[in-house]
């Protein structure tokens, strides 16, 4: 129990090294090893799930050790360089850790068809997993930043090597965008470090800096610096155009990780850093954030409706759905913020399903042009059925998990931002619009003869989708298990601000 998080984080790294040591040409073995390695964090995630104490905002599963400690003589002032290995999770991060562990396994299954440089692919993928879990567990800013950057590099190569026709463009765009964000973020982090008098401890920052006059004075600037880094990741309008490109070019599994986990790091970061450390700036910025959220919702949905590339459509739908998260965060009521974090988790599962499903059809027909399909439900009824579940979940149908996040966001943000909420509600009509229109164009109507020998979804693909479907239905019927994980932390978080 004592080092669950460390194991979760670093087992994939060790796995990556093991895979690199495997002999060349044993691709099948590599895949199985990768699957076995990703299964470890998943098993540990179950342990976390059962061992996590509900109803408290305490940090749990804490591991703490001094990492780098020396005293630097900076002329007049002596600043001790003090970086800790400080890992732990609370209600904010626990659902994200679970999501990451789950999606990683499913992505390995979905990557079975990768044939180019298999060892490198899975090694990079496992390195990515280390970075992702680390980001959500790190409670020392420097450690967080290290994981953040560790994640960036494999992502760049995964898109740039295994991607589609414009992969280099997409990869470099993703890389540069994220890099700009992280540089600004690092500067803010260093400033906070000095304000703290030499500590990167995030929890301490949240305790001390709100009462530190210097920090309060600098609050807005630092808030915005951090915010920019995270906003690019969410991605918030107008920093969002890297996302559709990255998605369209990335291989299926990478798209799943990108939309399922990486986007959440943006909102997670805001809730982890900006909110508790700069409560005043948070309140000051909340209306803007709400507006940006609404812009994301409406603009993302309208762009999605105009797409003919299936994957690009899903990418824009992610932009739209992340808007709900931002609106909920901005509202600063316990219900809305809980709804926002629920939406983060639920969007992670639903959008993962959507990307996996797009991958299924792309693997068969090698194009994603919505206009060229038609009547596929006749040919592939099971596939069409699963797509329908995912689609209905995405449009926020009650009874499937997508609804509750949105519902709580709306219920919680109506008192704070009535007009913005009403506008955001348009998003649910637009969402239904692009989703049902797509479904009609792809699956309904007479069968397009070009696809009369299309094969239905395979058992392996079903295995990669089934756990997500179960979660989507289960949390749709009964959201309490998710909600009780995160609620206490978020209530305290909101209380600390308002």
């Amino acid at each position, binding site marked *: 129990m004592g080092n669950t998080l460390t194991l979760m984080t670093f087992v994939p790294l060790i796995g990556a090294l093991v895979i690199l040591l495997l002999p060349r040409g044993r691709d099948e073995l590599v895949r199985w090893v990768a699957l076995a390695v990703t299964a470890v964090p998943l098993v540990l995630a179950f342990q976390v799930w059962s061992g996590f104490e509900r*109803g408290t905002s305490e940090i749990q599963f804490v591991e703490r050790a001094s990492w780098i400690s020396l005293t630097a003589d900076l002329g007049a002032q002596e600043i001790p360089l003090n970086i800790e290995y400080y890992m732990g999770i609370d209600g904010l991060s626990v659902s994200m850790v679970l999501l990451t562990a789950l999606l990683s396994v499913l992505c390995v299954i979905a990557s079975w068809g990768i044939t180019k440089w298999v060892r490198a692919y899975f090694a990079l993928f496992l390195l990515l997993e280390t970075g992702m879990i680390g980001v959500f567990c790190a409670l020392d800013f420097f450690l967080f930043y290290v994981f953040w950057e560790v994640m960036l590099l494999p992502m760049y190569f995964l898109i740039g090597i295994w991607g589609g026709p414009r992969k280099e463009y997409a990869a470099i765009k993703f890389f540069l965008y994220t890099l700009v964000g992280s540089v600004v973020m690092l500067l803010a982090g260093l400033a906070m470090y000095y304000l703290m008098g030499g500590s990167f401890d995030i929890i301490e920052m949240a305790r001390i800096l709100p009462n530190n006059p210097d920090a309060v004075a600098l609050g807005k600037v630092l808030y915005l610096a951090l915010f920019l880094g995270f906003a690019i990741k969410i991605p918030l309008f107008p920093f969002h155009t890297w996302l559709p490109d990255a998605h369209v070019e990335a291989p299926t599994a990478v798209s799943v990780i990108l939309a399922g986990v990486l986007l959440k790091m943006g909102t997670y970061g805001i809730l982890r850093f900006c909110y508790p450390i700069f409560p005043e700036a948070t309140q000051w910025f909340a209306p803007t954030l709400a507006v940006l959220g609404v812009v994301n919702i409406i603009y993302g949905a309208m762009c999605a409706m*105009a797409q003919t590339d299936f994957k690009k459509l899903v990418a824009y739908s992610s932009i739209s759905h992340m808007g709900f998260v931002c609106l909920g965060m901005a509202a600063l009521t316990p219900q809305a913020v809980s709804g926002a974090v629920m939406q983060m988790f639920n969007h992670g599962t639903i959008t993962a399903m959507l990307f996996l499903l797009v991958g299924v059809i792309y693997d068969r027909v090698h194009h994603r042009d919505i206009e060229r399909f038609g009547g596929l439900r006749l040919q592939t009824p099971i596939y069409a059925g699963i797509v329908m579940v995912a689609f209905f979940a995405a449009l926020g*149908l009650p009874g499937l998990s997508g609804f509750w996040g949105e519902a709580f966001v709306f219920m919680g943000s109506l008192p704070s931002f009535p007009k913005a909420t009403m506008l955001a509600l348009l998003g649910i009509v637009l969402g239904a619009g692009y989703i049902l229109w797509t479904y009609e164009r792809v699956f309904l109507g007479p069968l397009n003869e070009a696809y009369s020998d299309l094969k239905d979804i395979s058992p392996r693909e079903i295995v990669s989708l089934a756990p997500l479907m179960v979660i989507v239905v289960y949390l749709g019927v009964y959201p309490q298990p998710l909600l*009780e994980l995160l609620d206490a932390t978020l209530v305290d978080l909101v209380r600390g601000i308002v």
Partner: protein
Amino acid sequence: MLTAALICLLVPLAAFVVQLFLGTRLPRGGDFVSVGAIGASLLAACWIFWQVMAGGEPGYQWSMVFRWVEVEGFTIPMGLAIDTLTAWMLLVVVGVSFLVHVFSIGYMHGEDRYHLYFGYLSLFSFSMLWLVLSDNLLGIFVGWELVGVSSYLLIGFFFPKRSAALACKKAFLTNRVGDLGMWLGIMLVWKELGVLRLEQVYHHVGAGAFSSEATLTIAGVLLFVGAVGKSAQLPLHVWLPDAMEGPTPVSALIHAATMVAAGVYLVGRLFPILTPDALLVIAYVGALTAFFAATIAIVQDDIKRVLAYSTVSQLGYMMVGLGVGSYFGGLFHLTTHAAFKACLFLGSGSVIHAVHTQNIWEMGGLRKKMPITFATWVISTAAISGFPVLTNGFFSKERILGDAMGFGLHLPQHFLIFALPMVAAVITVFYMTRVTIVTFFGEPRDREKYEHAHEGGFEITAPLMVLSAITLLGFAYAGPFERMVTPPSSTDYAAEQFAAFHYGESLRTGALDESHGAHAAEAGRGEAAHEEPAHAETGAEHHEAPWGPHRVDAHSLHTGHRAVLYLSLLALILGVALATLIYHRKRSQEALARRFSGTWRVLYNKYFVDEAYQAGVVNPLLWLNRLSAAFDRVVIDGAVNGSATLTRALSSGSGWSDLRIIDGIVNGIASVTQVFGAAFRRVETGRIQHYFAFFLAGTLVLMLIRVY
């Protein structure tokens, strides 16, 4: 009670799951699973009905709350509740659903995806029951959306047909627009009250917890917008006629008897919290819908479309009923309509099954071939026309019109609320007679189809007979319904003197006491809600079961009702006579169409509402979508790529300058040095005599300089 409710609710859900996963492997596509499930539900519903009704207690309420979401931030309980209205609704929903299941065995025989069809029916039954049994607004909303999905799936059941694919999408999206309003209404209630359980909502609203009456009106109207979508009221009625693309039994169950009535049910549930202004909106929407939909039904050639517009129109009547405060009229019409309209739809299904066309002009003379269908059709046509005493439609429709008349007489500025449905009543009789004559009388127009036609099997005729029997037995249950189904917790409310009650009361007593009625009505329009002292006496009256049947009987407002009775009879005769005159003598439709070509065109094209939506909503939206996508590509990505290009240009510029200028300078210096070096190398030969010669030369030069 809990067990019965759970059986009623969950058995169809289980059937859906079974059908979804095992349907193809079961014999007969597993239809017996779904039919058996709904049979079990029916038994449970009957038991519940018996339990509730046997007590003879109008205020009966059983409820069961369970924790559903309960965290530090907020709690939302879910629960089931059964009162008299629920008991009736259960019986209506499960009853019609059961008959439609049975009918479908014959009707859908041999269709592809037969097992899924029954699975979807089970899903629908579950969702509808959830909607009816829920004790809170959120639960109702969940059921509300789920019936929408079942409706989507069933309308699109024949999805390889393009029109069906479009119709199911349209139905869902139009409903979604309505749901937007409803959801906003729910959130407004949540924001104002912090509770969603209906009982608590009534209580809090009664206690004046809403911040203002205007807000309450807005909440009521917003919630009603949901009903507008689901019950296909103007201006969101466009989906229902298209929904006829679904299998006909589905049209009977979902798009006539139950789901579309959910809007009316919702308004009925919300009745205690609706303000006079909200009710007025509801009444107007209902009246307009009743009238306009009826006019469209006159000219439709597709038998199912006639019935679809007729359904829209009848739902309008129910809204009028509730809008003018006729709780009984509105909700009783819901139940009677469920029976006779389901009978009509199944009858049309029987006909379509026999002749394989939906165009009434390809039918004719079918009464000889299909006597049972014909007989049941005539009975239900009589019911929808309000044929006196014998049919159930008479009791409900007369009550609505009578109450609307009372309303119209006392608030003459709102006389349209009575006039439009009254005129629509004539039109209803007219179009129903038209369809009956063209379909069942005269000579067969399409010999081949006629010869082919035959009455369906027992599973098709039995539901028709049962439904027409229920239609004829209206006199037996109109009384109990009125006695038992009363507005929820009305006694609590009356004490609070809530505005809606002033308003409703004024309608009922108004016929007797003009001044009092006008006074109360006026008060109802104004700030009646909190003007207690002025209306103390009304308040006192409220205390003694203001909605109780004896009160209505005692006062017998019946001048109004008697007038309406005569008017309706007149409408009946007029409608039948006109339609017979025009259609029985086989004067062709074309002559009529030519005679009134303008009107005809407008009606035939349903007032061009679809076209207006296409031009006014859909196309601009598509245009906006393309605009945003272009903006994304050109402006935002343009800026991103532009800045990238700029950076590259700058760096290649700086690269160039690095290469040419900076390096140029460096290299320049180097080359100069080199040149000098090369030059000096020649000089520095290392031989002493050369140096000596240079030395001499240098000295010579210096001397020369010195001299001059």
